[in-house]
């Protein structure tokens, strides 16, 4: 029993995080949100081998488990990455029988599922719909997914939500240190501190269950998604409150992360879908509950 990443895995996660944060800067996201063209990071994803994280070694991939992909998805969420990288590397590639073109970056594909109604328009054709997230260009889709796609989708959307939650807290902390009222930084007031500490705590207690879901699947997948949704909504509402009037505008970057969080809450199974699964398991089923069952 060792529920920690190895040093090698942690290095890989850190490298991916540095890459996302370094390339997908706030300036870049602001430009996209204003409709300006920016250079796609896709060629670099391919070059760094990131698209093949989960692909078999025989297909030229790194053959890493979903739990590692989840940590990378968290990093992608943290940076607010607009490209559908998690989608392709974490969902399409693992279910594809010939992923070479996907890994090399020459093609991009999304997976349809009954758990999603909207997909990035670069990936499939369909009728355009308008998201409040200025970084998402969506089309309406219909389809039936596979268990594996739905499982990966739920875990990876949960992981991205936790990355987004962390980012919203981090930018709120920065804002609270900088913004002065009553001649003091507002972050020195306990009312602000306690709100942020509560969200921090929820984030810390979301990550491990998402990792467990990535490894073990089963009911943990539903717990992971519900938990991530609740944490992200709490993080977003806390962040806007800490930002005060500024948080309600396009003048600060919070809205970019908040809107992405709203989007991901509904994708790959919304709260109702996953909560109903848990309800069946806990209240209606005869599953073994109580100590000693979580890791067995």
């Amino acid at each position, binding site marked *: *029993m*060792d*529920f*920690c*990443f*190895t040093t090698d*895995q942690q290095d890989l996660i850190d490298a991916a995080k540095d890459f996302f944060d370094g390339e997908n800067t706030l300036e870049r996201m602001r430009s996209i949100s204003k409709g300006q063209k920016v250079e796609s990071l896709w060629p670099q994803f391919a070059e760094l081998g990131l698209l093949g994280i989960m692909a078999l070694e025989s297909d030229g991939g790194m053959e890493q*488990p979903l*739990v590692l992909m989840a940590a990378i998805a968290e990093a992608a969420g943290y940076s607010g990455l607009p490209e559908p990288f998690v989608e392709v590397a974490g969902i399409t590639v693992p279910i594809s029988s010939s992923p070479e073109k996907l890994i090399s970056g020459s093609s991009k594909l999304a997976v349809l599922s009954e758990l999603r109604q909207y997909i990035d328009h670069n990936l499939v054709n369909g009728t355009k719909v308008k998201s409040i997230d200025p970084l998402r260009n969506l089309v309406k889709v219909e389809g039936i997914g596979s268990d594996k796609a739905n499982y990966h989708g739920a875990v990876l959307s949960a992981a991205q939500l936790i990355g987004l939650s962390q980012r919203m*807290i981090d930018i709120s*902390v920065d804002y*609270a*240190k900088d913004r002065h009222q009553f001649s*003091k*930084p507002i*972050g*020195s007031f*306990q009312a*602000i*501190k*306690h709100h*942020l*500490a*509560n969200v*921090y*705590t929820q984030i*810390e*207690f*979301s*990550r*491990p*269950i998402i*990792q*467990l879901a990535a*490894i*073990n699947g089963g009911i*943990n997948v539903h*717990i992971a998604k*519900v*938990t991530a949704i609740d944490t992200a909504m709490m993080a977003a509402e806390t962040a806007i409150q800490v930002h005060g009037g500024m948080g309600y505008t396009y003048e600060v970057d919070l809205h970019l992360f908040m809107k992405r969080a709203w989007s991901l809450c509904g994708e790959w199974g919304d709260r109702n879908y996953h*909560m109903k699964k*848990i*309800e069946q398991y*806990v*209240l209606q089923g005869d599953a073994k*509950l*109580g*100590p*000693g069952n*979580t*890791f*067995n």
Partner: protein
Amino acid sequence: MNIEFTSKQKEFREEIRAWLSAHVPKKRLKSFDTEEGFEQHRDWERILAKDKWGNVNWPTQYGGRGLDLISWLIFEEEYYRSDAPLRVSQNGIFLLAPTIMEYGTEAQKARFLPPMASGEEIWAQAWSENGAGSDMAAIRTKAVRDGDHYIITGQKTWSSRAAFADWCFALVRTEEGSSRHKGLSKILIPLNSKGLLRRPIAQLDGDPGFAELFFDEVRVPVENLLGPEHGGWGVAMSTAGFERGLLLRSPARFQSAAARLVKLYKSREKYLSSGVGEKVIQAWIDTERFCAATYQLVSRVEKGASISSESSANKLFWSEMDKQMHRTAMTIMGAQAELEEGLDSIENGRWLDGYMFSLAGPIYAGTNEIQRNILAERVLGLPR
């Protein structure tokens, strides 16, 4: 990352499960905050210790089995699954023992750990004072050095288990004229010392779970100093880390309560309004989250990481979770929620007891407001 239990760990689980099913008292013991219940629980500690089950992660020479912390988690899971009695020795084994292992001399380890493990010496915590609760650095009880003794004068309060315990571990001011965090020391004091008076305090359930301690020139030998003289704050914080962070409240305790809550819900479902089910589910979800997070923390500790400010998040999480869970039980029980054991009571008032105790969780071991300050300032980096 590998979340499989080893075959040794699996065997260990089977072994402790079998032992518990043969030894756990069939009849629930009285509360350990009554005189009779305290001795019943002490006897249970003796039974545990006789077969070396009391402290599986302690070194063998002090009464343990020398196992890792994962095995300790397995022990806890089986312990709460079997509904075994609460540990009257918890202040000693979970809070003081790790501190003795870290700061104690070899002589102190040999003197204090074995009788703690066997239940012969049960410990109380003596930190808070009337004027030093959340502001613990305001401690005024003083210890003056007199040759090879300290002479202790002052007053401690909210001292858990002190009504019936044998020893206390106190935080006192040893350096004259010192203030705040400096000049404090941790001293181990027999509760039957001459000049030491204890006044039991009735807790919310009416039993004396606390005592107030009055020290009137109590003489304690210098060898009872734990850790550096005047360096007691650091020693105490190490105890607080264990208290908030890991040992005192393992996930199994809450997971077992959540499973009982689901049963309670199912038995009363037809009377309940529609939102109650989701509250039950949330309680169960949170205990699973707490379990996953604890296994991760233990995995990190086993690899050499230490527990620091994140223990505050731990304490915040379990105490709020426990309160919500028990409040949901109170909601489900409706008019019967107020009943103690006897006619019409549900599980002999166990949920009511649990609810009252859950209200203490956000207060003891440093109030949740203090924990939030710690997280905001030391982890998030917000200004003081």
